[in-house]
Each structure stands twice: as structure tokens, then as C-alpha cells.
């Protein structure tokens, strides 16, 4: 006689409605692709419908934190808290944009007969991210991370005939499978130390462990290697520039925003749930001994942002430059985590929300221009500000925002980050980060200079469709509006920093 260990299966299934609807959309895409193989142009719309429905489910869940698929007590597989809902919303917004990007991407449209796979794999990535942001169990984290990775390996090489695409794909899968292998080994050590893979359980078991510090650090570092690969922090970042440059732009944009967001959620959940003992009076996390966590994170973040910024200085390919800049941004985000407080967490949320729009925007403009001139070299952008004033100005706005200058949203992101740092008395770190933004200014300005201060005989005309205008507007508007009126975002972020079971 089998005893029912999952007594509340129905409520658990209700709790994962967003994930279910994503999976159903995936299936719908595959089936539609098989049956109506002549009408592939409907696929993006099916995807968008799926995204909207999922979005509705996520929003309904917001504000009602609960755990699902629990075996005993609060040791559940999924934590459906506001924190995860917040990131799910970000991921869905990004996905919607990526679908819209893909509709006008020349790279994607060059393989019309594989659109079914394309959108199916995008949904594979989204499902992976959804599980990542709410996963509460190391094994679930590992598997969902792999789901995300497997889909993105394929998508990075989507245009099979393109050498760049294929190379990106190969490098990505080799680097990725090695990293995840190392991470799995780390997980196995942690499992050996505690006997559990559930984050909460590990936390309580770690209080009584006799494991040596070396073992513990080893396990943590190995797991960090896997997470660091996903969020591309130095020294686990090496794949980023090559893959970002090689992959189709729409996928690069997706990787640089959504996949990074999901990685950060894992990092934060892993740190906060597994390794904290509690909060002190002023809201800072008290970490378990063994490792100087804060120092570790600060070292990671400072190396990351410095490396990203300095390496970006030398790039002549805009996509590659944006890749390095996204590494640098990962460094800033990491600083928010390194504060080890809820305030720092809020800074991360705010930063991510604005990073989403500005980074996607930059990639979108690059894509529209690349569609026409088939190049991402900064040299080919000379005089574009005159021949394509709208796109030039838009790119200008996004780059200024990425730099973090007012009155754009990027400034707000940085502002909250620095406030969190200063509040935590990490003045030196804040100064280093500030100096870094100065370095960042150089390479962003370089693009603006090429576009607006150099003349070129070439006159390029890019015809934009109404869809392009709409997407561009949808991206610029938040960058400008959030730069001035950001209270709702702050409030939302404030509501979303609470992790379940903490």
C-alpha cells in the first residue's frame, strides 16, 4: 500500500500554474509547428499569448507567498515568494521583448523553417529560469540551471550556417558543461557535509556540522563556479565575450538579462537561506562562520567590474563591448549582494529592473542597425547619429543610462546601490565602484562620439516598421520615466525582498 506523501498535490499544482502554462505554451508551439508547418509566422503570437497568460498567473500570485511541493514541514522544493515573483515578472517582460526582437531579427528570419524550435527553446529557457528563481533545493537548482543551459547552447548556435554562431555554441557548451560539472561536484560535497539538498535543511544542519573549513570552502567555491558561470562574474566569465559576440543578437540580449537575473536569484537565495544565521538589529545578515563571506563577495564584485570595464575599453565590436559591459554590471549587482543586507537586496532588485530596459534597448538598436549594415563594428557606426537620428538618439539614451548618468533610470539603479554601500559603511568599495563608472564612461562615450561627432560619407537608411517603433518606445519610455519617477518601482522592490522561510 503506497502512502500518499504529497497530500496537497492539487494545491501544489495550483501553485505552479505559471510554470504549467509555460510548459503548455511550449507544447502548443511544438504541436502547432508540426501541424501547420506553413504558418510559422503565428508562432511569435502564440508565444506572446502564452507569456501574457503566465504573466497574469504570476501577478495573481504576487503578495501571497507560499511554498509548494513540500515533503516535511517547510522543506519544500519551491518557494513562491514575492522575491521570486518579482524576478518572474522581469523574466517574462524580457521574454516578451525577446520575442518581439526575434520577429524583426534578420538572423532569426534567415532560418524560417526552424522557427518552431526557436520559440520552443526560448520557452525551455524560460521554464528553466522560472524553476531557478523559486527553487529551494540544490538538485532542483542544478537541474533547472541545466535546462536553461541546454536550451541556450542550442540557441546560441541557432544559425547553423554561420561560423560565428556555431563557434559560440561549441564554446558555450564546453565551458558550460565543465562549470556545471564542477558545480555538481561541489553540491555532492555539501550533500556529504549535511546529508540534504534542501537549502533550509542545510542551513539548520550546518549549525551542527563537524566538517573542516577547507572542505566547506571547497564546496562553496565549486558551487560558486557554476553560479558564477551563469551570471558571468570574473573569473568564471571567460565565455561571455566570445559567446555574446557569436550568438544571434536576440539571444545575446536574452542571455545578458534574463539568464543573468535567474543566476542572481540562485546566488541570493543560496547565500541568504543557506548561510545566514539570522538578521541583526539593523537588517544585516549574520552569516555562518567558516568564510568571510563579505570579503569573498566584495573581491568577486570588484574584480568583476574592474575587469569588465577595462576590457571593454579596447573593444571595437559593439556587441563584444556590451558583453564586457554586462560583466561590469554583474560586478555592480554583486556589490549589492555583498552588502549582505535587505537594503542591498533592494538595490539589486532596482538595478535589475532598470538594467533590463537599458541593456535590452542597447541590444535592440544594435540589432536593427546590424540588420541593415551587417556589422557591429564601432567604426561602422560613424555618422550614424546624422543618418539615423532616431536610432542614434535611442542608443545614446541607453548608453547614457548604462553609464549611470542622470536623468536616466541607470542613475537610479546606481544611486540605490551606492546608498546601500554607504549605509553599510563600505566607503572604500563605493569609491572603487565610482571610479569604475568613470572608466565605463569612456567606452560608452566612444560609441556616442563615433555616432555624433564623426562624419561619414555613407548614408544609411533603415526603414523601421511600426513594430520597431513600438518596441523602441516601450524600451525608451521606462528608461526615461524611471529616471525621474521611480517611487512605484522602489515600493515594489521593497515588497519583494522578503524570502520565504526567513
Amino acid at each position, binding site marked *: 500500500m503506497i502512502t500518499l506523501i504529497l497530500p496537497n498535490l492539487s494545491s501544489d499544482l495550483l501553485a505552479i500554474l505559471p510554470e504549467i502554462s509555460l510548459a503548455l505554451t511550449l507544447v502548443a508551439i511544438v504541436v502547432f509547428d508540426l501541424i501547420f508547418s506553413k504558418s510559422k509566422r503565428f508562432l511569435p503570437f502564440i508565444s506572446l499569448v502564452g507569456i501574457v497568460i503566465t504573466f497574469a498567473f504570476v501577478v495573481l500570485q504576487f503578495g501571497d507567498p507560499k511554498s509548494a511541493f513540500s515533503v516535511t514541514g517547510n522543506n519544500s522544493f519551491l518557494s513562491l515568494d514575492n522575491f521570486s515573483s518579482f524576478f518572474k515578472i522581469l523574466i517574462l517582460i524580457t521574454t516578451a521583448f525577446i520575442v518581439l526582437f526575434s520577429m524583426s531579427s534578420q538572423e532569426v528570419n534567415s532560418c524560417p523553417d526552424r522557427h518552431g524550435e526557436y520559440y520552443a527553446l526560448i520557452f525551455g529557457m524560460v521554464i528553466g529560469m522560472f524553476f531557478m528563481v523559486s527553487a529551494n533545493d540544490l538538485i532542483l537548482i542544478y537541474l533547472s540551471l541545466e535546462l536553461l543551459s541546454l536550451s541556450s547552447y542550442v540557441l546560441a548556435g541557432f544559425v547553423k550556417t554561420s561560423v560565428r554562431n556555431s563557434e559560440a555554441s561549441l564554446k558555450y557548451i*564546453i565551458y558550460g558543461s565543465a562549470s556545471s560539472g564542477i558545480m555538481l561536484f561541489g553540491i555532492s560535497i555539501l550533500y556529504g557535509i549535511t546529508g540534504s539538498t534542501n537549502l533550509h535543511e542545510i542551513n539548520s544542519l550546518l549549525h551542527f556540522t563537524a566538517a573542516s573549513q577547507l572542505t566547506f*570552502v571547497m564546496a562553496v*567555491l565549486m558551487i560558486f563556479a557554476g553560479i558564477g558561470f551563469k551570471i558571468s562574474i570574473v573569473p568564471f566569465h571567460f565565455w561571455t565575450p566570445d559567446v555574446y559576440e557569436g550568438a544571434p543578437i536576440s539571444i545575446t540580449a536574452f542571455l545578458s538579462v534574463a539568464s543573468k537575473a535567474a543566476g542572481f536569484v540562485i546566488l541570493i537565495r543560496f547565500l541568504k537561506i543557506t548561510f545566514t544565521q539570522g538578521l541583526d538589529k539593523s537588517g544585516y545578515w549574520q552569516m555562518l562562520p567558516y568564510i568571510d563571506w563579505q*570579503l569573498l563577495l566584495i573581491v568577486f564584485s570588484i574584480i568583476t567590474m574592474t575587469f569588465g570595464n*577595462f*576590457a571593454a*575599453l*579596447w573593444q571595437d565590436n559593439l556587441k563584444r563591448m556590451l558583453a564586457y559591459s554586462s560583466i561590469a554590471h554583474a560586478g555592480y549587482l554583486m556589490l549589492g549582494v555583498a552588502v549582505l543586507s535587505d537594503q542591498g537586496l533592494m538595490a539589486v532588485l532596482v538595478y535589475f529592473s532598470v538594467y533590463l530596459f537599458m541593456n535590452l534597448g542597447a541590444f535592440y538598436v544594435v540589432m536593427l542597425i546590424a540588420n541593415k549594415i551587417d556589422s557591429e563594428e564601432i567604426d561602422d557606426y560613424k555618422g550614424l547619429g546624422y543618418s539615423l537620428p532616431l536610432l542614434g538618439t535611442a542608443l545614446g539614451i541607453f548608453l547614457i543610462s548604462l553609464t549611470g548618468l542622470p536623468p536616466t533610470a541607470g542613475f537610479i539603479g546606481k544611486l540605490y546601490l551606492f546608498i546601500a554601500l554607504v549605509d553599510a559603511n563600505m566607503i572604500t568599495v563605493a569609491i572603487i565602484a565610482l571610479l569604475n563608472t568613470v572608466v565605463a564612461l569612456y567606452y560608452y562615450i566612444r560609441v556616442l562620439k563615433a555616432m555624433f561627432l564623426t562624419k561619414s560619407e555613407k548614408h544609411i537608411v533603415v526603414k523601421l516598421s511600426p513594430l520597431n517603433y513600438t518596441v523602441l518606445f516601450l524600451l525608451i519610455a521606462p528608461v526615461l520615466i524611471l529616471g525621474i519617477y521611480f517611487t512605484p518601482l*522602489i515600493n515594489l522592490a521593497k515588497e519583494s525582498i522578503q524570502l520565504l522561510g526567513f
Partner: protein
Amino acid sequence: MTENSIINISLAILFLPLLGFVVTLLLGKKVKSIYLFEVFLITVVLIASIFLAFSKLSYFIDDKIVAELEWFRLSDTLVFNLGFLLDNITVLMLFVVALISALVHYFSIAYMKGDERYNRYFAYLGIFTFSMNGIVLTNNILMMYIFWELVGLSSYLLIGFWFEKKLASDAGKKAFLVNRIGDIGMFAGILILFLTYNTFSFDAIFQAIGAGKLPFNSDFWLSVTGILLFMGAIGKSAQFPLHVWLPDAMEGPTPVSALIHAATMVAAGVYLTIRIFGLLTADAMMFIAVIGMLSAFIPATIALTQNDIKKVLAYSTVSQLGYMVMALGVGAYKFAFFYLVTHAFFKACLFLGSGSVIHAMHHEQDIRNMGGLRKKLPLTYATFLIASLAISGIPLTSGFLSKDGILASTFAFGSLTGYWIFAIVGFLVALMTAFYMFRLIIITFHGEPRDHHKFEHAHESPFVMAMPLAVLAMLSIFIFYTPNPFSADQGWFFNKWINSAELHAPNATRFDFMQSEVATETEQTAEHNSSHGEITYSEKYTEAMHSAHYPAMYLSLFVALAGILTAFVFYQWKKVNVDKLANSIKPLYNFSLNKWYFDEFYHKTFVAGLLGLSKIIAWFDAKVVDGIVNGSAEVTRRLAFFTGGFDKYVVDGLVNLMAYISGFIGLIFRRVQTGKVQTYLVLVIFSIIILLFLF
């Protein structure tokens, strides 16, 4: 009329120019006549500001209207607000800005005709007006700083408007850089205030000071804070020793000079000092007075010998701003503002008049090539003359009323504290002012034309240019300020509209005559009625002012007339050979002509210092870095750059050096990006090992 509608009107006044900026900039290329939209908007702003001033002064004359809106909140105690503060000074200042801005808009319609970036120009005027209104309206120092920078930016755009001219773009850059020096001080001051009081709001800061909370708990730091904040004013109001940018800024279009460098932006520094007057201690005021005195004196001596019509006016502006600052330093708060307003009108009139002359002479600015223009430009001449009389302080003009007040205050200050130097310098400068203004008039408008070709083609300006001149000249007459042409005391402007300053600095740190023990009975009740601060003018001070009034008046009248007379003797009747005189005091003359060698001094000291530093760096670069990099082409290029002209180096050198260093680091970083994925993985393994040993 409610407070709400007042606030709504001021919101409109603030944002309409911004709307004009955006629309004009965006549609500038497509719609040729879009500038009319900007002109229309500024007219609306002008009407609104008149209406606002009227309502405020009629219905809410004793009220301070404050509107605040939460901008963002960091924690429960740390709230950043956006806010307006409307008192009488605010609305008057708004009116001045709106009026002059509108007149400059009209004037520019004709003056800038045919410029290829015509619409762009009006757009810039719009953003400038917006930023200036922002400075005037704000109730907290952070917002003020933001608008302060915006004003700096828009003035940079306007000065360098003809950026094809190297001088113009250099002047824009210089203005921007010099201003930045002052702004650093101001920013430091703001930081001190914020660290101490956790707020940016003027009122809250004043209240806290009144309650005895001081920065670092010391009077000394309160003085320092005041001086630091005042440094912003030194930059923006072109006070000594940062005055060097203003004359150069004359490279911009002349209407811009009238708007920015005569009436509004440079006055922003004075306005800032007025706003923070409440927290100034005696030491800080002394500092301000000395700066003001120097700024009044030095440029006045320079203006004596300049031959460029706009340069003369520029130096005179610095000098008159020095008056205002000095007035604030000696405690004549109301007169400082009064002079700010009157000076704005007649100096704008002078600048626009000079614009009219330059326009008529086909962009000739050297007065030695002018002469006799009186016949060709009668209206310009008449208005120029009225404004000159005003600036010289001849009775029946607004200048007489206000300048006389300042001189009387320095007199009173001398009698109260024994520092007579301010009064002496004040009268000296008044003498020089009258002299150089009339020198300008005589050489330009009187006598025989020197350049006949240009003279023949000169013609009176069209209506849109003449009208602003007439309006401004009219406003230089006493009747708009007071019924009594000899004293402002009974006038509505001085007596009713401007309130006395509220003082908040601790009693012990103030000048004796400003301490509150000697406040009179009535003023004490006034203190109880209003929740804020207390009134400055003690009985002692009033008395001193009173007794200083008549002597000062006669004396100032005398020096003004003496100055004018000398000018006539020198240039009209030619009784004295000017060249000979100049020759006989050659060193002094050259000293003045070359602007006290300020630019050269700065070049010799700062630039030479930087050059020396650069040589050291270059040496280091050659010996050490070169050895490492092994003579790459990059370094050779840099070296050539280092030894090259230092003019470029001052501005770009440090930036380039930093870029070079960063680039070098970047070069090392990119070495690891070999493109071979297995190499990357080896690096990852080594990183893990290193991290393992670190933690």
C-alpha cells in the same frame, strides 16, 4: 486666489520653457518657424509671472508659500523632497527672469536672423530659462544644486553657440571649468549640511541651526559651511578670483550676454547668497565682503582701458556684482537684492544696446572704430544713456536709489565696526564706473565717425530690437520703485515688498549690530508671529544707516558727477591728451589693459605647475613604462603629446593620461581572452585554487 493656484502658476512658469525647449529642439529641423512657439511660451511665462507677482504681493504679501512633494525615500528619516518656496523675493526674481528672458527672446528674433541654427538657439534659451526658474523657485539646496548645474550647462551651450569660432568654444569650456571649481566648494558645503541635518530643505536647516545644532558642533564649521556654499556664488557670479571666465564668455551671441551674463545667471550667485544669508556668521560675512570688494575694484580698473564694447560691459558687470556681494557681506541684505533687480534691468539694457550697436555696425565690437553713432541710432543712444546714468548712480534713476543704499550701508558698516575700507573702495569704484561708462558712450556715440564705410551702412534696429531697449530703459527710472526719487526707504519696493532677512546663526557668531538682544520690541513680536527666525535690522544698525544716508548720498552723487565730468574732459572736449596720459602711467595702464595679468598668472602658476608635473610623468613614462612596453608606438605618440603645447594639455592632458593608464590595464586584461575555450578553463581552475588559498 488661493495658495494652490499660486503654486500651479509657478509650476507653469517653471515647466513651460522646458516644453518650449523640447518642442523647439525636436521640431527645429522640420518646422522653420517653430521658434515662434518658444517665443509664445515665454510670453505666456512673462504674463504668468506678472500675474504671480501681483497676486503674491497683493494677497499673500506676508506669507511664505511652500509646496513640497516627496521625491524618494531612503528610510523613514531620509526623505528627499521636491519643493517650492515662494516668498516676495522669489516672485520678484521670477518676474525679473521672465521679463528679461522674454525681451531677449524678442530681441533675438531680429538679431539672430539668418543663423543656420536659429531654432536651436531658441531651444537653448528655453532650457536656460527653465533652469534659472528652477534655481529661483526651489526650497532646498539639493534641487538648487541640480538646477545650478543645469544653468551652467545651458550657459555653456549658449556661450559656445557659435562653436565654429575657436574662441567661442574655448570660452564655453573655460566658463564651464572655472564654474566647476566654485561648484566643488558648494557641493562640499551641501554635503556638510546634509551630514549634519539629514535634510536639504532651507527651512529645516535654518530651524535646526536656530535650535543650536551646528556642523561638527562648532561655530567655526558653520562659518566654513557658509563660505563653501558661497564658493558656488564666486564661480557663478564671476567673483574674484574666478571672474576670468565672464569677459571671455562675451564670445557668445550678445542677447545671450544680456540674459545670462548681465541679469540672470550671474545674479544666481547673489541669489544663492541671499538664500543662505540666514546661516552666515560674522566671519563668513567678512569673507564675503572682502571678496565682493575685490571683485568690485579690480574689474572696474580693468574696464577703464578696454576697447571692446562688450568687454567693458562684462567687466562692469563683474564689478557691480561685486557691489551686491559686498552689500551682503556688510549686512545690507535688502539693498543687495534691490540692486540685483535694478542692475538686471539697466545692465540688460546696456548689453542689448551694445547688441544693437554691433548689429548696426555689422559685427564690429571695437569702439575705436565707432563714433558719432548718436545720429544714426537715436533710440539706442537714448536708452543707452539712460542705462548709463542709472549705472553711474545719477538721481532720478533706479541705480541711484539702490547704489546709494549700498554705499550708505558700507558707510554705516564702517561706523559700526571700524572697517572703513569697504566704503572707500565703494566710492572709488563708483567714480570709476561713471568714468568708464561715459568713456564708452562718448567714444561710441559722440564725436565723428571713425569708420565711415561702416557708419554709412549703420541703421536703427527694427522694432523687435528697439522695443526691449525701450522697456528696459523705462524700468531704470525711479518711479517704478518708489515715489521719492532720493530715497528708496519709503518706496513700495523696498519698504513693503522685500522683507528683512531672517537670521539663524547663533547670536555669538554674528556681528554686534546684528545680534538679537538689541532687537526692538516690535521686531520681537514679529518673531513670535512668524514661526521662522527673527529680523536682522537692529535699532543700532537702522540708526547708523539713517545717519549715513545723507552723507553717502551727497558723496556718491559727487563722485558720479566727477567721473562723468572727467570722461567728458578726456574724450569729448579732449582737454587732456589721453594717449599721453596713458603713456605717462604706462605700467598702470598696461596693468589695467591686460586685465591685471590674471590669465597670464593662472597660466604661469597652475599651467606651469601642471607642465612640470607632466614633465615628471613624461620622464617616468619614457624611462620606466617605455622599458616595460618596449617602445610601442602608443608610448611614442604619448610622449610627443606630452612635450607638445601645454594649452591643450591643461584641459585634455589629465584625461588622456587616465585613459592611457586604463587602456594599458585593459590591454593586459584582454591578453587572457585568447579565444581558446580550454585556456579559459585552465584559468578558471587556477582561479579556484587561488581563491581556495585566500579563503
